């Protein structure tokens, strides 16, 4: 059986055409242009990826999430979902506003329930475990207004022209798909990179006991030097085509801004995949981490606090190629020393690919490397 939706009900908001009357006739003062990242959050609320949320959080939920990683009805939830607005944006409680994209096209109607302020330092310390502005998540919260609006999203405008729409499934679709495939156990794999052999081995180890694998790359805002979204998708398609049996794997992307909140974010990653219907999620070393802000396995340990999460984490140690084992191994399966292990840093791998040189086949499949190298510009500049 696929997982039940988080909080018990799969949110599926009305989707209408952007030209719908619901978005017309608003005074300019009630139109709120939002960033690409907030746009993705709105989409994820509307399609149920963030069930049971039906809008942006109010103060009570925000407080219980920060203090105890629970919504005010005790549902597990580890990072607030907030709509930050400049104090110059004047609409008040009970006003209905229209969220628009950066170009002014309507995204959604939102009925304002609350307007409140957050303490950004407290937010940073609780969510990220640090208030160091060098942490990308902390920098983001410090650069956001402290004023936030809460309210339910009433209608959502269909988004035409998404270049990834043919690989973007909503939870209702994955749930039907998993049912069609008769999968009862589905392992989710979160990623923001093209696949290395080490990722493939995590996936295949999980597949050895599960019915299906749900590969769910995160697309969206990237740092300079990251792989571009198109490259990540094409690389995964190449891997699946060449190295996975038919009918064991589903590739679908998630539009989402990484927060780099380590353990707290691992819980959010699990909740989103539970809403897609996954029963398990692979959690590796330093999942959703950045720099050295989190202990290597903190994102695994935090799951102990959630006996009621409703999706089971599978904890993995990193895989590498071992010359003595003559195959992929990890510290739980290989007794040999580091000298026997073939590892390569992310930076070195990028240098090789950037220079048109194929990485060792023990690190990356040649078909995957070739897709990356055939792209005229695989990296975010």
């Amino acid at each position, binding site marked *: 059986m696929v997982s039940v939706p988080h909080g018990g009900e799969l949110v599926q908001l009305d989707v209408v055409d952007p030209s719908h009357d619901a978005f017309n006739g608003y005074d300019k003062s009630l139109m709120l242009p939002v960033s690409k990242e907030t746009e993705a959050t709105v989409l994820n609320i509307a399609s149920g990826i963030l069930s049971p949320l039906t809008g942006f959080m109010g103060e009570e939920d925000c407080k219980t999430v920060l203090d105890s990683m629970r919504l005010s009805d005790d549902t597990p939830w580890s990072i607030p979902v907030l709509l930050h607005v400049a104090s110059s944006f004047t609409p008040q409680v009970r006003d209905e506003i229209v969220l628009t994209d950066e170009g002014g096209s309507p995204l959604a109607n939102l009925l304002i329930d609350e307007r409140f302020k957050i303490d950004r330092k407290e937010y940073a310390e609780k969510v990220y475990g640090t208030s160091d502005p060098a942490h990308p998540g902390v920098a983001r919260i410090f650069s956001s207004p402290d004023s936030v609006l809460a309210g339910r999203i009433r209608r959502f405008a269909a988004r035409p022209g998404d270049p990834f729409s043919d690989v973007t499934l909503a939870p209702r679709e994955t749930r039907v798909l998993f049912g069609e495939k008769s999968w009862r156990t589905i392992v989710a794999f979160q990623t923001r990179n093209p696949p290395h052999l080490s990722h493939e081995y995590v996936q295949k180890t999980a597949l050895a006991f599960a019915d299906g694998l749900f590969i769910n790359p995160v697309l969206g805002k990237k740092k300079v030097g990251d792989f571009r979204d198109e490259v990540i998708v094409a690389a995964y398609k190449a891997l699946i085509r060449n190295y996975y049996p038919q009918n064991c794997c589903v590739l679908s992307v998630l539009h989402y801004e990484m927060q780099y909140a380590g353990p707290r974010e691992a819980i959010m990653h699990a909740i989103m995949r539970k809403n897609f219907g996954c029963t398990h999620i692979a959690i590796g070393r330093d999942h959703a981490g950045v720099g050295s802000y989190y202990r290597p396995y903190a994102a695994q340990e935090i799951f*102990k606090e959630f006996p009621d999460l409703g999706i089971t984490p599978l904890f993995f140690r990193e895989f590498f190629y071992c010359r003595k084992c003559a195959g992929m191994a990890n510290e739980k399966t290989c007794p040999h020393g580091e000298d026997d292990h073939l590892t390569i840093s992310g930076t070195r791998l990028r240098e090789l690919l950037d220079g048109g040189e194929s990485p060792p086949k023990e690190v990356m499949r040649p078909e995957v490397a070739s897709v990356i190298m055939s792209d005229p510009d695989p990296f975010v500049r």
Partner: protein
Amino acid sequence: MTKYTTVSLPVTLHKRVERLIAEKEGFKSVSDYVTYVLREVVAMHETEKTPAPFTSKDVEVIKSRLKALGYI
């Protein structure tokens, strides 16, 4: 900070849980243990009564998109 309330446990059960968690890592107090176990059990009961998220008509529409995209 997290808010708490009080529930009553038979003293015998309280002592029994105290003995159990003394030998087990991970629980700081009887309250901790009871909270953990209750959440586990309550979630299980809630799962049993969750309604199906869509109708059979929805399913047909969804399947046609999945077919068009090559997923099935």
